[in-house]
């Protein structure tokens, strides 16, 4: 793996990911929760997707979730900056939202629906000359790490 300077790295999308340390070694997925109907969404929202209320609050989302589905992408889309094949996972968070991202650090034979995963951050450079951004990914979690966060169902 190439080495990157982690100084002043930006999150891949500041509406979805906040970096908690100057070097980007930890971060938090961001969401919005509706104070009217309780529905929670990943990323930004101005009105609630479910009830259209504008009475929303920003929330930090759990960094652990369950693999709802996955695929091993053998033919990547144009501009994909990572290795091929790569694993794409749809992960269900305890708060409700599903978050799509690459699943790393796992053998293909260990993939299964229901697997507990945790947030992992990696720097990714787009192309040869593009910016390097911190990208949120999923990695297998051990059982203790994957337990629901306090206050979630």
């Amino acid at each position: 793996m190439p080495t990157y300077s982690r100084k002043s790295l930006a999150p891949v999308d500041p509406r979805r990911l906040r970096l908690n340390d100057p070097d980007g070694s930890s971060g938090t997925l961001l969401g919005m929760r509706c104070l009217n109907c309780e529905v929670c969404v990943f990323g930004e929202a101005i009105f609630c997707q479910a009830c259209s209320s504008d009475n929303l609050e920003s929330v930090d989302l759990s960094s652990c979730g369950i693999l709802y589905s996955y695929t091993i992408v053998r033919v990547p889309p144009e501009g994909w900056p990572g290795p091929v094949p790569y694993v794409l996972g749809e992960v269900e968070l305890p708060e409700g939202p599903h978050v799509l991202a690459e699943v790393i650090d796992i053998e293909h034979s260990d993939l299964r629906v229901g697997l507990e995963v945790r947030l992992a951050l990696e720097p990714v450079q787009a192309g040869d000359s593009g910016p390097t951004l911190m990208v949120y990914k999923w990695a297998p979690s051990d059982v203790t790490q994957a337990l629901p966060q306090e206050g979630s169902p």
Partner: protein
Amino acid sequence: MTQFRPNREVVVVGVGLHPFGRFRGKDLATLAREAVVEALKDCGVRWRDIPVAYFGHVYYQGMSVGETALASLGLTGIPIVNVENACSSGSTAFWQAYWGITSGVFDLALAFGAEKVPGGPVTVTAADSPDRFIGGDHMMAGYALRMRRYMEENGATPSALAQVSVKARQNASLNPYAHRKETFTVEDVLSSRPIADPLTLYQCCPTSEGSAAAVLCARDALRSYGLDESRAIRVIAASLTSGNYNGRGSDHSAFSPYRTEPAALAAYEMSGVGPEDVDLVQVHDAATIGELQQIESLQLTPKGEAWRATVEGRTALTGDIPVNTDGGLLAMGHPFGATGIRMVHETVTQLRGEAGARQVNNPRVGVAQCSGAGDVTTVQIFAR
């Protein structure tokens, strides 16, 4: 959702199709015009009588392609609207033509669509979107996620999914307009190149070029244009929806496998027919899993059971719910802007009893359904 009430009865009087495939050396406007000429010839409507046209296409290949395509037919000064609504662009153009007539504004309307889709995996977002970094912007990967979950929840087998493609090729082998006409077996499908597991190449629609066109008319105006009522097919519903909240807190279309349900319900209500009345159906089978979940969204089988219906042959030409009788996206190919109107072409051809070797037995009601990025979904119902 507010649903406008149709006023005037609308019929399709003419349909035209350019073969789907690869046509290097033929530009988008030329491709589009050829289907329009076929549709005008099919019904005998004179170009100068067409008061409005809607053109579906997605990929940018110059401005005002609809106007360019029609210019060589004569500059009649009519409103021409270029429509981009992802994979439902053509069917959205048809929807606009339908509402233009039923609302009483126009007697006639032309809906047409064309596309020259680039090769390789289809992406939805702009090249600098974060989703390109994250890896989620990959149309077939989205279908693969749905497929894995569907198999897990419903016990659907890989060979059941593959049978969707086998059936598509069988139908396309009877259709001279199809991009892929060679038949193959379940084993061929499963052993073809993996694209995004569990989807293999032969379970993904080809990216294609092609065009399709339809001429619509108010039923009460048929006589004044000297049109043949016996070949006119009634449009008894046309619905268009975008995404509803799906309980998953994101707008990625991988998360909405049953996004067609609201459009299906609206169309059934508008038409007064129900799933039990449907004699044939064209659905958006960009991947094998798509066909199954669209069949279920249209309530033609219970949820989770369309794979069984497929294995039992119920969706074949000779089954009780023939699906994608011309080969569908999987074998006809998928030129985005043309696909929705290609479905209209096939439905009208079948309801007229003019489908030749792939004719289903005496159909009276046909459904066409498209869906695309943005959860854009159309459902149209036709009857003779």
